């Protein structure tokens, strides 16, 4: 198969076919995010169901969430720029995704032992709280804790290739560190700010001797209404009767909604 997007070599290319399945605003899609977490692997191209979906994803890059139809998808990873050939991927898996769920798919471990680490992501958080989890994606690093410097562990005994459950914290600033179970500091994360209404994934990546953090926001909360807006005041026949009826309901609606309204420059 010929490379279709050679001219856009720096960019990841999101292929149309992921969207083409129907209505954009329907409820039958899942969110899928791909992360390159293999320290010695080259940049990769990712194919979903045989279609080039992400191009030249370097180590420590993530795709952001893509919409994919619910169902089972074949995800294949090739070294960037290599010809697509079915069954010849350096890494391949069939991934089942449910509508309304979000997933992180990390290509992890060393190139020689490349594997997918799949985690289900949270799209909710208690109002005013921060929600955090950590993932141990450093193939040769020992089990670690993540905790307050000089204080309690928030996450204990995280081992490669585990992604912990989420835990909710008060929003605020924390002096954190990644440390061994005996307390030896591996990586300081002083002054870490966790914002309210936000869900975080903090992945420890790279090799043990150059351990670093790849942090991602999974979700930021905001309200949704129960229904779409009614955005037409007209009707096909603007008869006198229709108009007076519409005017009547208009006054009612305006009165009922007054407490919600804030008009600017008045």
């Amino acid at each position: 198969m010929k490379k279709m997007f050679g001219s856009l070599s720096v960019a990841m290319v999101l292929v149309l076919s992921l969207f083409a399945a129907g209505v954009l605003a329907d409820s039958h899609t899942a969110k899928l995010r791909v992360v390159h977490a293999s320290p010695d692997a080259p940049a990769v191209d990712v194919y979903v169901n045989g279609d080039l979906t992400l191009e030249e994803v370097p180590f420590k890059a993530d795709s952001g969430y893509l919409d994919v139809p619910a169902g089972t998808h074949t995800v294949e990873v090739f070294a960037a720029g290599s010809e697509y050939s079915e069954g010849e991927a350096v890494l391949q898996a069939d991934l089942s995704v449910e509508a309304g769920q979000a997933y992180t798919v990390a290509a992890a471990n060393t190139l020689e032992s490349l594997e997918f680490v799949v985690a289900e992501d949270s799209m909710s958080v208690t109002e005013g709280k921060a929600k955090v989890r950590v993932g141990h994606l450093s193939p040769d690093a020992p089990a670690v804790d993540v905790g307050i410097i000089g204080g309690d562990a928030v996450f204990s005994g995280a081992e490669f290739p585990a992604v912990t459950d989420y835990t909710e914290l008060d929003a605020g600033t924390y002096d954190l560190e990644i440390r061994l179970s005996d307390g030896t500091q591996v990586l300081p994360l002083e002054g870490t700010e966790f914002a309210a209404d936000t869900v975080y994934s903090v992945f420890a990546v790279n090799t043990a001797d150059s351990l670093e953090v790849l942090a991602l926001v999974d979700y930021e909360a905001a309200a949704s209404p129960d229904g779409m807006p009614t955005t037409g005041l007209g009707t096909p026949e603007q008869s006198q009767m229709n108009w007076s009826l519409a005017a009547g309901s208009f006054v009612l609606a305006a009165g009922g909604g007054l407490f919600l309204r804030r008009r600017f420059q008045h």
Partner: protein
Amino acid sequence: MAGCQAEADEVSLRTKEIGFVEEQPQKPQSPTMNKNAAAAENPINALKQVKGIKPKTISIPAIGVEAEVLHLGVTENGEMDVPDTIEDVSWFEPGYEPGENGRAVLAGHVDGAEGPAVFWDLNDLKAGDEIIIEGDEGTRSFKVYAMESVGLDLADVDAVFGYRSTPELILITCSGDFDHKRGTREERLIVYTKLVEK
């Protein structure tokens, strides 16, 4: 009126068979590409740098729209609220701000009792057309990448108003045949736009 539940008119004809999705490159979200100095210090703190604005005006040069943006919430029946006037646009204030990650939603009427309203020509937008939002905190520009006209029962409200890993702005107006039983049109025209990175 008996038996007449869905009625075609100019609005519904204009939005028949409408819709597109522009194929476009996704920028990699790599911390290595983040020039922010904070990234080197503590990558977690480099995450929430994307700030939104509270919109005061919207302008869409391609269709000659210049309008004030009201900050509204929900109606008594839980729908996104809309302006009482045909010339203003409403922002769903409890949702995302234009410019922050997630879908900020603006709505405007397609018509009024006497003719076209602010979003009458929304169906004429093409991929790449620019939407400019201004507020006290600054200006944000968005580019159209998709449009669809969706049946009210098919539209997933949580998706239209939902979280995204990048900033998006959604414009909504009414489309489709007029449903006399429901007292509104059968569809909504939804325009999807993405923030233009500076």
